[in-house]
């Protein structure tokens, strides 16, 4: 199955399978949003502001997840010299960076009515902003460095250094006193979010993951084609 991600196979990725993925994603996102915006209850403390969480939480999660993947792919590419890994990381960066931006913007929109401010320089918010900056740096390296090997090396290093920020983001709310609240969903304890809100959140999570996968595949196809074209041009 993984062989399908190799250059020769990806270009013949079935359009039917792709359309199926898109339909599935649309279904999850549509149902998720209906629940998020209308059918789920409002919170007893924050009222309807809670509905921003249904977008903010999956976006934040994906922003971290994509960068984690980029970091792992970059390090494996440097150690094992697997050619497709940098291309995969490169394809994931645009989606991840948009999710990081969405996380910050939706967070601000939520913060104003609940906390009373658009932004604070606490550990969680500041480290998320740093993550966004690392995304921009990563994409800039690929864009502005002409030589492929050099761009690959610089961007990989940016991804690896940026990966150290990921545990900081995740545990910032536990390690330091922050304005941002601690995690409601953890691996070790029961969720502190009621099931009527947790289920729509999970639906939105799945929809977001599918969306990321689709955009990644679209981008990846293009990157492979570009790579092959460059290789052919160099040979001529």
């Amino acid at each position, binding site marked *: 199955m993984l062989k399908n991600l190799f250059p020769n196979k990806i270009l013949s990725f079935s359009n039917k399978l792709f359309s199926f993925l898109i339909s599935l994603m649309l279904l999850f996102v549509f149902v998720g949003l209906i629940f998020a915006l209308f059918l789920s*209850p*409002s*919170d*007893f*403390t*924050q009222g309807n502001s*809670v509905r921003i*969480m249904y977008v903010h939480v999956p976006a934040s999660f994906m922003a971290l997840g994509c960068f984690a993947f980029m970091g792992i792919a970059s*390090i494996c590419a*440097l*150690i*094992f010299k697997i050619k497709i890994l940098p291309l995969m990381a490169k394809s994931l960066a645009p989606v991840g960076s948009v999710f990081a931006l969405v996380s910050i913007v939706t967070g601000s929109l939520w913060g104003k*009515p*609940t*906390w*009373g*401010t658009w932004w*604070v*320089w*606490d*550990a969680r918010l500041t480290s998320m902003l740093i993550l966004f900056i690392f995304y921009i740096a990563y994409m800039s390296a690929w864009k502005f460095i002409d030589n492929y090997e050099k761009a690959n090396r610089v961007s990989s290093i940016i991804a*690896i*250094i940026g990966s*150290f920020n990921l545990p*900081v983001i995740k545990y910032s709310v536990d*390690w*330091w*006193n*922050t*304005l941002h*609240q*601690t*995690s*409601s969903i953890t691996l070790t304890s029961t969720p*502190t*979010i*009621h099931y*009527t*809100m947790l289920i729509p959140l999970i639906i939105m999570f799945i929809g977001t993951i599918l969306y990321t996968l689709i955009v990644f595949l679209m981008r990846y196809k293009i990157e492979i084609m570009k790579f092959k074209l460059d290789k052919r041009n160099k040979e001529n």
Partner: protein
Amino acid sequence: MLSYKVRSRFSFFLFIILSLSFLIFIVLSSLEESFVYFFSPTEIYNKENLTFNTKIRVGGLVKENSIIKKKESIDFIITDLNKEIIVTYSGHIPNLFSEGKGVVAEGKLQDKKFFIADKILAKHDENYMPREVRDALKNTSK
């Protein structure tokens, strides 16, 4: 599978990663104070080098029945269920500010027990519960 080249690259990166992690850990633990957004009343109580004229933030829960609304200002107590600090504030109050809920006050410390705030932020906890469920729970506990 693991040729000499791969193994040596692996060891090199492992070394770099371990030393970077160690360095970052050292940096983060020494810069503790600039990373915390606020101090709890207990942390203020135990702090050695208290400064009384610099901006500082105190956070915790608003103690039940401690809010006193005066004409120009509001007084309340921030507690972390261990130590308390009295806060006085005049200005706009955020929507979610209420007794029993989290708050972060920014301003100047007058002494270990008294704080003059020029800005307050309501802090939301990690619990999400529909109003109906909360009311139902309240009724059953009565």
